């Protein structure tokens, strides 16, 4: 294994940083190479990515007009 390759243990340690786009270029490439060759880690990454997407889907897209009005009025008092 070269210093640019990672094993499953390392891949699992970095899995959240990977799905959060927080790995730097070299680390990200090493992770991607590992995921191309390891079906289990690939499935894990896909699972974590999908779950993150589902949690992100909880974000309320609609703004509450009453809150905006109240803050607009407040800003005018500054």
């Amino acid at each position: 294994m070269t210093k640019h390759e990672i094993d499953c243990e390392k891949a699992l340690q970095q899995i959240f940083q990977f799905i959060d786009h927080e790995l730097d270029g070299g680390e990200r490439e090493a992770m991607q190479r590992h995921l191309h060759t390891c079906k289990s880690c690939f499935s894990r990454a896909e699972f974590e990515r999908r779950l993150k997407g589902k949690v992100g889907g909880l974000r309320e897209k609609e703004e509450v007009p009453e809150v905006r009005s109240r803050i607009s009025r407040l800003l005018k008092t500054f």
Partner: protein
Amino acid sequence: MAISREAFGEKVLALVGSLHGVACRLTGNDTDAEDLVAESVARAWKALDSLESDAAFRAWIFRILHNTFVSERRRANARPQCDPIGGENLDEAEPVFSIFEQMHQPFLLWFSNPEQEFLDRLLREDLERALATLPEHHRVVVILADLEEFNYREIADTLGVPLGTVRSRLARARGTLQKLLWEQAQARGLSGAAATGAAEGRTAGVPRAKSGKEA
């Protein structure tokens, strides 16, 4: 940093939906959330000198929101809260829970995928309940990372913790969230036959592929 009242107002109004959304999940109700946003905006205006740059505005105002929430809650409870860092250390020795590890069956990949089926069955209410049940220091990192899509540096700045703490806290928080989802699913019998079978197969050391093909 010097910023005009108009520019401050524009920036605040651009974020008011996010501020209110996060406030709702911190306080658990709309009324308190609205008050929290208003109080935070007032504090932010008074603390404008502490804003270091334009780019830092989002993390800066969310930090004020979070600090305001923590201080208001302390005052309401009239007693010191447990130190979240201390709480974090207590569960540091526990492995991070993973639904994937509970369910994944490498021998089943060609005809079944229990962990993906688990995700398919997850309802918004399941996720809402699990998120609301998370301890606050876990809930806030999940909200910032996954709902508000903050990067780790912004989360660190918002919470006033080192980057490494964000990494470890987020991993712990996601593990706790998955444990809650898993327990909810088990309690309601919603983890599915595939999950039950996967667990049984693993426990007995029997590949489930055979029984699956027979079924």
